[in-house]
């Protein structure tokens, strides 16, 4: 099933400047595998050392944070919208 992934500006250097990428996949993990196979430079930003979701990235499926769903196993409906967003943080 086809879903759309929105890419934040900081990662568009890895996607030939594309802001939205359409891929097929039944789960978030499957979609990540697909998009990483097309744009290998994304891997270091999406996947942590343990193979799970990178800690400095937030992923939403249709406005729900996948950390509160089933993580990378979250199932996708056809036409789902996936947003990849960098964690924005700092401190004095």
């Amino acid at each position, binding site marked *: 099933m086809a879903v759309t992934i929105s890419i934040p500006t900081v990662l568009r250097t890895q996607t030939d400047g594309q802001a939205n990428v359409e891929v097929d996949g039944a789960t978030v993990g499957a979609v990540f595998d697909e998009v990483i196979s097309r744009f290998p430079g994304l891997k270091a930003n999406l996947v942590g050392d343990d193979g799970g979701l990178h800690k400095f990235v937030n992923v939403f499926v249709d406005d729900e944070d996948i950390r509160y769903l089933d993580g990378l196993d979250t199932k996708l409906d056809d036409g789902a919208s996936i947003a990849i967003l*960098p964690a924005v*943080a700092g401190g*004095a």
Partner: protein
Amino acid sequence: MIAVGVTTLRLTRHQHAVMVGHCYDGLPDEACGLLLGPMIGGVATGVITDTRPCVNADASARTYTVAPKDMLRAMRAAESAGVEIVGVWHSHTHTTAYPSPTDVRQAVDPGWIYPIVSLRDGAPVMRAYRIVAEVITEVPIEIVA
């Protein structure tokens, strides 16, 4: 890859007031918010179309994390307006308006502008920066009508 730098951050009086006001509202914790505007070649132009106060998910006087839901809302708003998220501002409650080592290490996007509002002294002090490959460059702020 990084295009020419932003020469000046241009804020309206209202935008400036929203940013500083949100920092006071957040006391005693640090406050944070996102800036929307156009980019050229992946770099903020310095023109700001929207200032969006966000929740500090850390609820801390020492650190901030923009609440992920606020980040999502800002991204959607940017998409609707045909602009981008071009920066994040935050407060330093007890230090100067200069990026901390944590700010530098965690700077998310080399194309963004990073305003910091110091509330250490009697009057608020706002200064803004680019942070590219851990190198800090100040961006002058111009208040426009």
